[in-house]
């Protein structure tokens, strides 16, 4: 009697174990599939930009519920939710700068509505947003580099004069003109995309890229001597010695200032240097201490 019971028990135990193993294997495989799929589906296309205040991409994908509330509260209908097959994680919000850049509303309505904080509620000044970084990506087609006047990106920029400045440089081709080159400054660029939207070339010569794609990084060990010097008030290594120019008597040179200075007769009498060597080479020859 008890043996039969044991058999029944062991049979049901066997069934339980095999069922559990089957389930575990199947679901484990499924999980692997989902994991791998999501890894490949979660890479953000370089033309897609996240709304202002978005956490770094990995955290953003962990926090965004794909609810679309930011999309709804964007007054300019710039944001959209990614569909299957797009190179943006399914259901997450993004915008394409070339189609329509962020209008940078001062009250940033898309951020406080985010229920999870995937768009960081701490962002209250839109100028602090870093949706991407503008890069003058093609100097062969940017007409400013060709020597033509444009400056559309400079003028359209909502952080005008800070995020993009125009620097004059010599036009080597013509030899007599200036080129007005747009330069982007990452400390002010919000990545709103207005410059890319407005760029007059068929394909934008200035593009807004995700920051990690656009920005280089100097090695941690680099110290910029001129900055260190400025911070310390003086050179941190050997003290600066003034450069000496080998000039005829009565002539000095002021680097970065007056340039060549031809001294008057009276001034020329004063010794030019505190060198241990006399100006007269004979003095050196006659100096007994140097003799053998």
């Amino acid at each position, binding site marked *: 009697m008890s043996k039969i019971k044991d058999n029944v028990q062991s049979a049901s135990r066997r069934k339980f174990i095999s069922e559990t193993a089957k389930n575990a294997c199947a679901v484990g495989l499924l999980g692997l599939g989902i994991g791998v*799929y999501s890894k490949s589906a979660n890479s953000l296309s370089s033309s897609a930009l996240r709304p202002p205040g978005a956490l770094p991409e990995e955290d953003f994908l962990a926090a965004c519920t794909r609810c679309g509330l930011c999309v709804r509260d964007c007054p300019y209908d710039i944001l959209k939710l990614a569909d299957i097959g797009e190179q943006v994680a399914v259901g997450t919000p993004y915008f394409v700068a070339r189609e329509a850049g962020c209008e940078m509303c001062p009250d940033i309505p898309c951020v406080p509505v985010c229920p999870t904080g995937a768009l960081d509620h701490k962002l209250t000044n839109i100028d602090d947003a870093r949706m991407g970084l503008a890069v003058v990506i093609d100097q062969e087609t940017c007409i400013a580099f060709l020597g033509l006047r444009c400056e559309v990106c400079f003028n359209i920029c909502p952080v005008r004069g800070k995020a993009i400045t125009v620097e004059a440089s010599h036009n080597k081709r013509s030899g007599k003109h200036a080129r007005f080159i747009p330069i982007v400054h990452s400390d002010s660029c919000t990545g709103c995309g207005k410059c890319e939207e407005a760029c007059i070339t068929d394909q934008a010569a200035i593009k807004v890229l995700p920051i990690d794609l656009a920005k280089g990084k100097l090695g941690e060990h680099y110290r910029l001597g001129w900055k260190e010097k400025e911070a310390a008030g003086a050179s941190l290594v050997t003290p600066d010695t003034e450069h000496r120019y080998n000039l005829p008597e009565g002539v000095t040179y002021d680097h970065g200032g007056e340039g060549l200075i031809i001294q008057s007769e009276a001034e020329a009498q004063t010794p030019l240097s505190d060198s241990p060597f006399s100006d007269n080479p004979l003095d050196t020859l006659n100096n007994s201490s140097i003799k053998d």
Partner: protein
Amino acid sequence: MKNNEAIGQRSLKAKGFIGSYKWLILRRLTQLLTMMLFLLGPVAGIWIIKGNLASSLILDTVPLAEPLYVLQAFAAGILPHSTALIGVLIIITFYGLLGGRVYCSWFCPVNVVTDSADWLREKLSLTGSISVSRNTRYWILAIVVILPAITGTMAYESLNPVPMLHRAIIFGSFSALSVILAIFVFDLFIQKKGWCGHLCPMGALYKLIGSFSLVGVKADKRSDCDDCMDCFIVCPEPQVIKPALKGEQKNIEPVIKDSSCTNCGRCIDICHKDVFHFGIRK
């Protein structure tokens, strides 16, 4: 057993059309109304509810949020903003009282898809089914919650058909419908009532949420049962009926206690003997 009449014919004769379909009609109306409310904003500019089933905002004040999302965010090491936490609390309270899987049968848009697949399956007399255990959903739920801890992102949300379908309709991103088609085909040919009853991790989570719900189906007139089996055929989770309906000898209360029950009310409608009623599950 006298299963010689088509399903539903007996109740139609005994109770008429309204009597035989009232809960189904109410359910479809609720699903339709929910969808309409969400659509009213984007279509007509009347924002009663904004967002989608993942998280939403009623009249720009009351937040709602899907518990599975917040669980995944936790697992990925993110503490969501309090809005989402309040939203989840509201949802858990609502479904915790009314029955967790009320979500599945009364609000989830995929329910209409899988019910249609099941209806077609009956119409075409398609038989044959692989046997996926109903417990598989817990395994899937587990893996869905574990995956964010490994990948650092809400991995399952690249696939989750429930919010995907809702988004497809509300935000007009229709290529998501391919996933829905896959579920329809799966339910039609591969596994009867397969997605909602065997695989969906959201269903599994709502089942857990509804473990102590107040509202449930009672088989209070079970002595009238004439074993026509109609309720077992229409029920999306037929295993829940048996203890309540047939448990008299074993002194089991005539109440469906299993929280797999979706409170859809199909058994109430279909029973020509009027055995089932909604009641307080205590």
